């Protein structure tokens, strides 16, 4: 007998449901990782204004603002798909789960575009 347990069967066709799950999972993992970092960073607030502003200046550069739009996207995806999951679990969403996915992710995308615009307005160009 040939034994087969594997982490993921990459040869299996991915349908909307499995894409949603994979991305939700990756997003969730990214978020918990980010949350750990975030708590650590904010802790620097307690070391006084100078320390804080130092960190902030660093984080307000272009690369980090771009990353922040990414974070915003990850959050929106996870949040809106999370809502989809709750609808599936409690409100018969499974009967229309594909439509739900498309609609909710479309809304999330619009919010992402809006939010990213605002975030990028905040870029502090480093004094030359």
């Amino acid at each position, binding site marked *: *007998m*040939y034994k*087969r*347990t594997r982490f993921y*069967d990459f040869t*299996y066709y991915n349908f909307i449901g499995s894409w949603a*799950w994979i991305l939700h999972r990756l997003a969730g993992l990214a978020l918990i990782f980010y949350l750990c970092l975030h708590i650590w960073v904010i802790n620097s607030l307690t070391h006084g204004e100078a320390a804080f502003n130092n960190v902030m200046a660093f984080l307000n550069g272009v690369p980090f603002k771009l990353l922040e739009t990414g974070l915003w996207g990850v959050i929106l995806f996870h949040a809106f798909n999370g809502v989809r999951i709750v609808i599936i*679990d*409690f409100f018969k969403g499974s009967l229309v*789960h594909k439509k739900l996915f498309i609609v909710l992710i479309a809304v999330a995308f619009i919010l992402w575009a809006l939010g990213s615009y605002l975030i990028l307005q905040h870029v502090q160009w480093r004094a030359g």
Partner: protein
Amino acid sequence: MAMIDISVKILRYQPGKDEKPHWQVFNIAVEDESTILDVLNEIHWQHDGTLAYRRSCRSSICGSCAMKVNGRNVLACETPIHRFGRKLKIEPLSGFDIIKDLVVDLDPFFAKLKRIRPYLILDKPAPDKEFVQSPEQLEQIGESTLCILCAACSAACPSSWPNSEYLGPAALLKAYRFIFDSRDDGADQRIEIVNDKNGVWRCHTIFNCVEACPKKIKITEYLSRLKVKVVENSL
């Protein structure tokens, strides 16, 4: 009806001979209206007698012939080749150990089924005639009784790939079928069984099972109802 040439790639594994599975390509001519099972029969009968696969009813009711074709789980006997074009890639169901070629070990699958006590449990004496069950009560479980235990769902479920102990959609669906049967009194026992780390909580509403189910059973919907029932029960 016309003959067409197709190329069929099959994942072969002959115990005793092969260390591990490998691909073999058969270039054959078949009728364009053939099903996947017709193709396998053609190969087995005319080209290579050593090919092994399961089949019986060839009318999509016995559940023998579930396998993976071009990345999706299907019943070989009901799936026409034109759904996939002229290149076929046929593999055994994912997740299960391979006995030989397309034949997988379903013993764990059936063991899980047995685990959820798949039979009516009664506290009350049965009536002289039939139990009264309204069409609406039947409707609750009607679709779930169509399951043919083909294992296509469990084999398609990403939760069961890394964890062979996961009960899987088919067994959970069976639990649903009995827990929601108006005649049954065994809900508490079964809820305790599915309310397990390897039970219903390993389902992350991925829907691969629904996509794979040849009987188009809305498995995820029933598992959701099951989860809510379990939660209600343990509150």
